[in-house]
C-alpha cells in the first residue's frame, strides 16, 4: 500500500508540464479559460501539436499511436492539460469511438479511421440515442436494410454531442426486426456528408450548441462500414458506455474549476473582505474540495486496480462526479454575486442561438461561468442518467 504518486509519476508530471508550457499557443489558453464549447479549429490545432509529440491519443494501443502510459500517467496528463487551460479535446472520436474500433473493428477499418482521429483531422459523432429511447437503448428504431453491397439507413438520432463538428458518425442501427430487441442491433460507420442526412441543432439551457439531431432519409452506406458482427452492436455500445462513465468523473476538470474558483474568491468581495474569507463560502468550498479529493482517490484506485471491471466503480464515480460538477459551477455563480446572474455569451465563441447585441457588465473572470452552471444540469443526465447508474450499482455491486 503506497497510496501516493511515485517519484516516476512526479517526474512524468514535470515533463508534461514543461511540454505544455512551451507548446500551448497563448490564444488557445486564453479561450480555454472560458472553458466551454471550444472551437473545432482550436481542438484540431492542439491535437496536431500533441500528435507531433505522440501524445494526442495516449490511451490507444502503441501500435495505433498510443503513448504506452499507465492509467495514473494518463490521469496526470489530463490534470496538467486542464491546469494549463488547454482546450478540452474532442472526446467522441478518441475516447469513445476509437476504443471500439481498435477492439472490435477490422484491420482495414482501423487503418482507415484511427489515423484521422490521432491527428485531429477527423471528428466523430456517436449515434445512439433516439427520440423515445434515452437511457433505454434497446428500444432504438433506426433501421438499416441490406441492399446489395450497401445498407439503406432510415431513422433519427438525437442528443448527438458535438455533431456539428463531426465528419463521421458511429451509429447503432437495427438490422434485424425479428430478433429480440438487443440482438437485432448493429454498429455502422457513416460519412456525415452522405446524401440524405440532415442536421438540426438542439439549443440548450445555456443558449449554446452541444447536441444535435440527425435525420437519415434512405442513406446509402457501404456494407463494408459494418463494425464487427451484424447483431453484435449492443455489446460494442455497452463497452463504449463503460468508458464514458469512467471518464465522466472528470476529476482533473473539477480540480481546475476549484483552482479557478479560488482565484475568483480572492478577487470578489463580500462585506468589504475577500469572499475567500467568508465563513459560509469557505465551508462550502472546503466540502467540495474534500469530496473532490475523495473522488480523485476513488478514480486512482480504479485506475490502479488493474481490472477493467466495467461498471461498479465507473457508475459510482459517475454519480458523484457529475453531482460535484454541478455544485462547483453553482458555487462559482454565487461567488460572482450580481454578475453571476447575467447571461454572458462567450465573446470568442461560435454557434449562438441568437445575437442579443448586449454587453453585460461581467468581468473577464466571470465569462462563461453562469452558462456553464446551466449546462451542467446535463451532467447527471448524459452518459447514462444517474438514476440508471444507481440502479446499476444496486444490481451489480450490491446484488440487490
Amino acid at each position, binding site marked *: 500500500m503506497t497510496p501516493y504518486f511515485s517519484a516516476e509519476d512526479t517526474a512524468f508530471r514535470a515533463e508534461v508540464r514543461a511540454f505544455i508550457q512551451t507548446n500551448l499557443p497563448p490564444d488557445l489558453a486564453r479561450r480555454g479559460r472560458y472553458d466551454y464549447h471550444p472551437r473545432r479549429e482550436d481542438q484540431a490545432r492542439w491535437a496536431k501539436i500533441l500528435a507531433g509529440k505522440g501524445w494526442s491519443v495516449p490511451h490507444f494501443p502503441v501500435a495505433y499511436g498510443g503513448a504506452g502510459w499507465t492509467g495514473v500517467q494518463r490521469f496526470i496528463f489530463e490534470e496538467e492539460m486542464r491546469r494549463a487551460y488547454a482546450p478540452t479535446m474532442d472526446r467522441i472520436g478518441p475516447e469513445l469511438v476509437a476504443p471500439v474500433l481498435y477492439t472490435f473493428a477490422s484491420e482495414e477499418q482501423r487503418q482507415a479511421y484511427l489515423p484521422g482521429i490521432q491527428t485531429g483531422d477527423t471528428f466523430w459523432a456517436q449515434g445512439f*440515442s433516439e427520440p*423515445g*429511447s*434515452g*437511457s*433505454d437503448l434497446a*428500444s432504438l428504431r433506426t433501421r438499416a436494410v441490406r441492399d446489395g453491397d450497401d445498407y439503406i439507413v432510415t431513422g433519427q438520432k*438525437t*442528443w448527438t454531442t458535438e455533431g456539428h463538428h463531426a465528419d463521421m458518425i458511429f451509429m447503432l442501427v437495427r438490422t434485424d426486426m425479428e430478433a429480440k430487441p438487443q440482438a437485432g442491433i448493429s454498429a455502422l460507420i457513416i460519412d456525415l456528408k452522405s446524401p440524405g442526412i440532415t442536421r438540426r441543432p*438542439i*439549443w*440548450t*439551457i445555456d*443558449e449554446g450548441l452541444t*447536441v444535435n439531431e440527425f435525420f437519415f432519409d434512405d442513406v446509402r452506406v457501404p456494407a463494408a462500414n459494418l463494425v464487427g458482427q451484424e447483431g453484435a452492436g449492443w455489446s460494442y455500445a455497452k463497452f463504449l458506455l463503460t468508458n464514458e462513465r469512467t471518464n465522466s468523473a472528470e476529476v482533473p476538470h473539477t480540480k481546475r474549476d476549484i483552482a479557478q474558483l479560488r482565484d475568483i474568491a480572492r478577487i470578489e*468581495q*463580500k462585506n*468589504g473582505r475577500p469572499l475567500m474569507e467568508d465563513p*459560509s463560502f469557505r465551508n462550502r468550498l472546503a466540502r467540495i474540495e474534500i469530496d473532490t479529493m475523495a473522488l480523485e482517490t476513488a478514480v486512482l484506485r480504479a485506475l490502479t486496480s488493474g481490472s477493467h471491471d466495467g461498471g461498479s466503480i465507473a457508475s459510482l464515480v459517475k454519480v458523484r462526479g457529475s453531482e460535484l460538477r454541478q455544485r462547483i459551477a453553482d458555487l462559482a*455563480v*454565487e461567488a460572482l*454575486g*450580481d*454578475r*453571476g*446572474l*447575467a*447571461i*454572458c455569451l462567450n465573446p470568442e465563441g461560435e454557434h449562438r*442561438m*441568437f445575437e*442579443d447585441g*448586449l*454587453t*453585460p*457588465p461581467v468581468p473577464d473572470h466571470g465569462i462563461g461561468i*453562469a452558462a456553464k*452552471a*446551466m*449546462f451542467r*444540469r*446535463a451532467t*447527471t*443526465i*448524459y452518459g447514462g*442518467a*444517474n*438514476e440508471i447508474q*444507481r440502479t446499476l450499482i444496486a444490481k451489480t455491486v450490491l446484488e440487490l
Partner: protein
Amino acid sequence: MDFTYTSEQDALRDSVRRFVEREYDWEERFRIIRSDCGFAPHHWAMFAELGWLGAGLSEEAGGFGGGAIENALIAEELGRALVTEPFVPHVIATQLLAALDSEAAADLIASLIVGETIIAPALQEAAGRGDWRHVETVADADRLTGVKTLVEGAARAGSFLVSARNGDGVGLYLVAASAKGVSRTDYRTLDNRRVADLILDGAEAVLLASGAPALTAIDHAMDHGLIALCGEALGAMDAALWATRDYLRVRKQFGTAISNFQALQHRMADMLIEVEMTRSLLYAALGAMAGDDAQARTAAVAAAKVQLSTGGLQVGAQAIQLHGGIGVTEELNISHFYRKLYGISRQFGDVDLHLARFAQARDQAPRRGG
C-alpha cells in the same frame, strides 16, 4: 384564521390566468425576449387596463384596496407562465411611493397604476450582493454618483427610484431617465429579465425622503417585493412540478411509463413537499404583513425567501432531471423554469443573507403566541 381566497381574489386570479392562456404563449414569450426592451408595452397596457397594477395597493395610497395578497396572487400566475414583464419591480416602486405618503408620490402612483409611466427601483449595488441596505452611491446635494445593478425594466423606465448616501445616512431620490449624467448598460439575466446597470455620474435627482423614513419605506417596499417574488417563484415551482408529473405519466422507458418507478415517485413527493412548504411560508408572510410586529414581518419574509430559494432550485433541478435530455433544451419550458428559479434564488440576496436576517429578527422578536 382562513387560508382561502375571497371570491374577488379568485376572480383576479382567473383574470390573470385567462390573460396568459390567451395572450402569452411560448412563441410570444420568445418574441418578447428578443425584442428591444425585453418586454411588451401592449401587455403592460393590458395589465393596467385589467387593474392589476393597482390591485395590490390600498385605497388611501391611490390603489384599488388590495395588498400583498393580491400582488402575490398576480405574481404567482405570471410566474406560472414565465411572464417577463417587470411586475415585481412595479410592486416595489408603488409600495415605496405609497410608504412616502406625499403628494408628489401620490401623483407618481397615479401614473404608474394606469401604466402611463414606468418607474424602476434602483436600490442595489454590486458590492451588496443583493442586499439593498448596502449603499455606496453618493448624493452630493442633488447630484448622484454611483452604479446601481440589476435595474429591471430600465429600458422603458421614465425615471428611477435610487438610494444614495447623504448627510442623513441614506436618502431616496427620483432620477429622470433623461437626466444628464445618467447612462445604462443593458443586459439579460439568466431568467431573461431585461435589466441594466444604471450609471450615475453626477446625475440630477430629486430627494423624496431621507434618513429613517427613507430606510423604513425601502424596507417596507422590499418586503412587498419579496412577497411578490415568492408568489412568482411559487407559480414557477408549481407549474414545473405538474408539468413534470404529466410528462412522467406519458414518457415510456423499458416498456413502462416512467411514473411507475418508485425512485421517481419519491422524488416527485419531495418536490411536492417543497412546493407546499413554499406556499405555506408565503401565507405565513402574508399573515405577518397584516400584523404590526416589524421583527415578525422581517422573519416571515426572510423565511419565505430562504425556502423559495432552496426549494425552488430543488424543484427546478429535479424537473429537469426527471425530464432527462429534453429538460435541458432551450425550446421546452422546463429549462426556463429552472433559469427563472435559479435567478429568483439569488435575487435580492442569497440564502445566507436571508438566513442571517431571519436569525437576527428571531433574536429580537418575542416568540409567536408569547
